[in-house]
């Protein structure tokens, strides 16, 4: 096969796998930012928190990191619910969530990151999953399990979330709170309770994405920064509140970034990806897969 074509195909495949990871990170944000209108810029910081906790637990117990991250999900759910209670009490109730709320999450992000540096040190942490060294070869294309397994788990979790939102009563209430919270009150559902629940789910996904992240690459306390732009870009490109659009955007984003990295060098990949976002914001702000608002 033509070496350039092989490089391109490899770039596309590993981009798709990377996209699975991004989808996990963005799905949580798609709930909080897209549906609840809570601009949680600390989301990637919580992802890194999850990644480092998984790394520490893995070092202590030797359990599978992805299993650990699923076990951690309830703790993250509780953390998210608590954070939402604070946010609601101080900002949403007062009605000035715009600047103050953004600044609040910015401060929370800072506290999480610096707290991590002070607690576990600034060095990189990693885990060695049992399957990490295996690579499947399909002809010219390499499929490393180190990336395939996290991507599969992430997509499965998103699928479960989509089923939950589509078919359960609570899930449909979450979708409804995104559209009209007063109408929800008329149905005798407490919108605050629903939003608390949904924000918890969003953070649980941050923890899960962190577990997937630390399998793929070593993580340090500041790793979240690169992800802030990425996950917001994906959520906006995906059309804010649509999970399907979010997954598609994540896969596209992963491919663009990875192909750029393999042809022009990895130091250029962030600029191209964010250039995409600026363009989307300028030309089609409702997202590539969103409906006109």
């Amino acid at each position, binding site marked *: 096969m033509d070496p350039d074509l092989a490089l391109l195909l490899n770039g596309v495949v590993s981009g798709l796998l990377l996209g699975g990871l991004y989808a996990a990170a963005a799905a949580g944000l798609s709930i909080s930012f897209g549906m609840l209108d809570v601009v949680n810029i600390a989301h990637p910081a919580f992802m890194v928190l999850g990644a480092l906790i998984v790394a520490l637990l893995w070092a202590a117990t030797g359990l599978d990191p992805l299993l650990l991250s699923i076990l951690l999900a309830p703790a993250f759910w509780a953390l998210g619910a608590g954070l939402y209670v604070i946010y609601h009490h101080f900002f949403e109730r007062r009605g000035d969530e715009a600047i*103050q709320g953004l600044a609040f999450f910015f401060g929370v992000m800072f506290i999480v990151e610096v707290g991590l540096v002070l607690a576990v040190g600034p060095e990189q942490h990693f885990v060695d999953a049992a399957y990490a060294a295996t690579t499947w070869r399909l002809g010219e294309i390499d499929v490393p399990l180190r990336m395939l397994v996290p991507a599969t788990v992430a997509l499965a979790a998103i699928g479960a979330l989509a089923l939950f939102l589509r078919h359960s009563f609570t899930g449909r209430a979450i979708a409804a709170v995104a559209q009209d919270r007063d109408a929800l009150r008329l149905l005798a559902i407490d919108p605050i309770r629903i939003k608390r629940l949904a924000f918890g789910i969003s953070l649980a996904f941050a923890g899960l994405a962190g577990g997937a992240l630390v399998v793929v690459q070593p993580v340090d306390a500041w790793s979240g920064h690169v992800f802030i732009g990425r996950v917001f870009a994906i959520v906006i490109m995906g059309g804010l509140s649509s999970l399907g659009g979010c997954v598609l955007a994540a896969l596209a984003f992963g491919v663009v970034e990875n192909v750029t990295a393999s042809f022009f060098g990895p130091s250029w990949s962030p600029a191209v990806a964010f250039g995409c976002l600026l363009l989307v*914001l*300028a030309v089609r702000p409702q997202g590539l897969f969103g409906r006109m608002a």
Partner: protein
Amino acid sequence: MSDAIIPALPRPAPPRRLGHAGFWLAAAAAAAILILALRGMGSEYAYFAATFVLQYVVLATAWNILGGYAGYVNFGAAAFFAAGAYTTVAVGKAFGLGLLPCIGIAAMVGGALGLGTGILTLRLRGAYFAIATLCLSVVLQTFIVNWSYVGGSRGAYILRPRDVPFGFDSYGGYLCAVVLVLAAAAIAIARSIEVSRLGLGLAALRDDEAAAEAAGVPTLRLKLIATSISGAMMAVAGAPLPYLGSYIEPTSAFGLSYAVNAIAMPLIGGTASWAGPLIGAVLLSSLQQAATVTISSAANLLIVGVVLVVFVCVAPRGIIGLFRRRR
């Protein structure tokens, strides 16, 4: 009684308030006094610490023009700041210009950057502008890292000129005086905007953009003006940075501490008036300077984060708001 004259009520006296010229003069006088006081101390560390604090005064005041007056959060303060710093590096290397012309060019670069970001995103309301500014910082950093002319990721060294202009006793003293003048000018500009029609329009669109638009406020134009001015001033704040440390590299120039401080300082001081960023910047940066010297640099960022969260939760109007409420 048809010809009875109802005496006109005495018109309430207009509130006493300095005019533009008066405020500018007062700012200049304050700057002159401070320069003399610092010369009296004459220690290099005093110059360095004062420059550090004053650079944050400029940055916070600049952020507040868009963030406080218009209500649009800019998370990319570090991007504008670093754009200014790297303008100094690039222009100084290409044309051999000194600090003052570099500051002027940095203002133009920052203004253009602000205008460009504004045109791309300000037609959207809400959080989009904030997110775009976050991305701007990543894009710019990538370009600087890949631009080997200004040192790339290795960083660049800037040598301070041997001869010190205007009869200052050291280059540190000269740098401090320059930043002090910039800070005084920034505050005076912010105050002028605050009491002008531009400031009124920005306040209107901050409170209710749709209503302001309906009342005939040209919201998009005002936002673009505010973004350009704010961007230009942030770049100006960054322009002296390479001379301050004699070395600059992308990771520290785009450091998150600039972005978080630019937001935290106005919010802690109070965003509604020019005095808020000044109070916040002086308090917070002195605190950080002290914490860096006595504890550690990671701890000082933690302090900023905690102070920011506590203030936005408990005192949303900042320190100024606390005093106004008591009165």
